[in-house]
């Protein structure tokens, strides 16, 4: 079998425990060569530990970690063909930006002129061409982030690991960097493994996402699949916002006692007593609270049948400034039956 036919990273029933805490609990997945793969989950869900297992900072207690088909048991970080962009960037404070970027080449004893040329090239690529002489302490957060990226890419790794690299940046910069990272990944064509707790970031950038919770994977899939067809209640709640309808309420609303999730943007608010549309469910209730978000408004509706639903409506007309006036109004909610997503009652153990 040629090396190319191996997945870039393969986890086979990998576990990593800290004392009694199962940080990673029997996790298996494959990451294809050249894929942008995100590990998404709340803090403490095991996503960062998985990344550290790939980098070699942690060793698996059970199971196997393979990189391009090679078992990584006992292989130290400095012998692995992967590089990491750290959450805090971890730049060497006593070296210039150019020396930071060229560090991997210096360790590999690449001759100085080539080192300098390639470091310059990398800095050009991340648009920091003229800052090579500065110290990391003299850079802004966004610039440091780019230096960390250039430093990790200069070794031309086959897998790049990114540990919440955009977490410390402000919103605008983060969105710009998301686009740049994605473009960069297409340009260099290597596998990106991206850890984040930001579901929007994961949806924006990834080819595929693995959703982590309590050390296990809840679901692996393309962003659209994860969002439109969440496999479990956890995924439905963590990726985007969902109205989780338990079996009892579902029985009253849809006549079927199976738990479902309904996205707030897939519910319409109709006037009280409006006729039920075809192939749609309806539920009557009263708007308990409302918030104006600019592009949209969010309504909290207390249902007569019990429970509450969140509804998001696009503010397509400027009449939406009256959002708050809707509080207390009686309404009828409706949505297509097909958009009520059935959930696995308990995630498969």
């Amino acid at each position, binding site marked *: 079998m040629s090396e190319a036919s191996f997945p870039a990273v393969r986890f086979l029933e990998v576990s990593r425990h800290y004392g009694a805490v199962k940080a990673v609990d029997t996790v298996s997945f494959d990451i294809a060569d050249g894929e942008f793969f995100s590990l998404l989950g709340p803090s403490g869900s095991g996503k960062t530990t998985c990344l550290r297992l790939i*980098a070699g900072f942690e060793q698996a207690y059970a199971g196997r970690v393979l990189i391009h088909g090679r078992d990584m048991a006992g292989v130290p*970080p400095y012998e692995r063909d992967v590089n990491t962009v*750290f959450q805090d960037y*971890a730049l*060497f404070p*006593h070296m210039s930006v150019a020396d930071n970027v060229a*560090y991997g080449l210096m*360790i590999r004893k690449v001759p100085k002129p080539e080192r300098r040329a390639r470091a310059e090239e990398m800095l050009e690529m991340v648009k920091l061409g003229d800052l090579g002489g500065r110290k990391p302490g003299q850079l802004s957060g966004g610039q440091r982030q780019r230096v960390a990226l250039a430093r990790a890419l200069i070794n031309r790794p086959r897998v790049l690991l990114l540990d919440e690299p955009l977490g410390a940046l402000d919103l605008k910069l983060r969105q710009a960097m998301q686009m740049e990272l994605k473009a960069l990944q297409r340009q260099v064509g290597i596998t990106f493994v991206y850890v984040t707790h930001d579901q929007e970031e994961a949806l924006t950038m990834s080819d595929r996402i693995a959703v982590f919770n309590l050390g296990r994977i809840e679901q692996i899939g393309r962003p659209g699949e994860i969002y439109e067809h969440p496999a479990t209640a956890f995924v439905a709640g963590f990726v985007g916002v969902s109205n989780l309808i338990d079996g009892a309420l579902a029985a009253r609303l849809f006549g079927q006692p199976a738990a479902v999730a309904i996205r707030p943007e897939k519910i319409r608010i109709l006037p009280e007593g409006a006729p039920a549309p075809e192939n749609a469910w309806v539920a009557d209730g009263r708007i308990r609270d409302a918030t104006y978000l600019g592009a949209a408004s969010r309504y909290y509706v207390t249902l007569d049948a019990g429970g509450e639903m969140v509804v998001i409506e696009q503010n397509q007309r400027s009449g939406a400034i009256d959002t708050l006036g809707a509080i207390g109004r009686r309404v009828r909610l409706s949505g297509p039956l097909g958009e009520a997503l059935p959930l696995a009652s308990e995630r498969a153990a």
Partner: protein
Amino acid sequence: MTAHTLAAPPPARASGAGALQRLSTFLYRHPMLALAILLGPPLAWLGGVYLGSLLALLAQSFFYLDGFTGLIVREFSLRTYGELFTGANLDIILRTTVMASVVTLACALIGFPIAYYMARYAGPRLKPLMYLGVMLPLWSSYLVRVYSWKLILAKEGIVTWFFAKLHLLWLLDAILSTPVIGGPSLSTAYLGTFIVFVYIWLPYMILPVEAAIERVPRSVIEASADLGAPPRSTFRHVVLPLAIPGVVAGSIFTFSLTLGDYIIPGIIGSSRPFIGQAVASHQGTAGNIPLAAALSVVPIVIIGIYLAIAKRMGAFEAL
């Protein structure tokens, strides 16, 4: 009167506010006054008592002792400094500087591994114990410890006994018969002075080095490994350069403390004087205060030169 200004104070919230609260409010509105009250006394101490006496000392070093009358001539002169460069005084300066350098080097070599272990490997239970071990000697009397070393190093002491038990007396004798550093016994040799100096000042090296190594984030060390550096390269290119400011801080302690000490060489070692002893005898029995002052300036100058070299070599770039 209804005239009011923009700066008019708001009415007090409670009419019965105590005097203390009114004082607090007054100081809140006059921050410069509050600053002056807080900083005044320590600055007066630092400027008047501390720097003042140092300047007085410096001034003394420009007077000179009249050789015939034995009186101090209070006129500006560089004669006393000229005396520093005569044979005996130059010997003292050289002897002290060499000893201070060697002691500093030994403290760095012994202290670094201990500090490294404390900062990077010692667990939460071991680390406080190690801190205790490093600092415990500082809590007992300096004199008691130096006299204990006198006994330990004496010809009838435990070191000789230990060598004898191992049938290695010939080795001890060989060491003691080395010219310059040797002598009749360890407690009367330069080697003994050196051992006690290293023992006494070692904590002052370990603590700043430990603090410097502890400040190196784990992720930086992981980043080095991630970029392909095996542990020894990581140590050389990352840990050591980041620890150097700590070593320099520690060496300032060990170096200047050795330069100024006059008790240890008086108790342990050959009876040839160090700067501290010379200062003590010149300002005491000999009554040559200008020379004592000039000798006191020597360590200040040497430390200044040392810091300038350290800065030029980039020791503080990681600060």
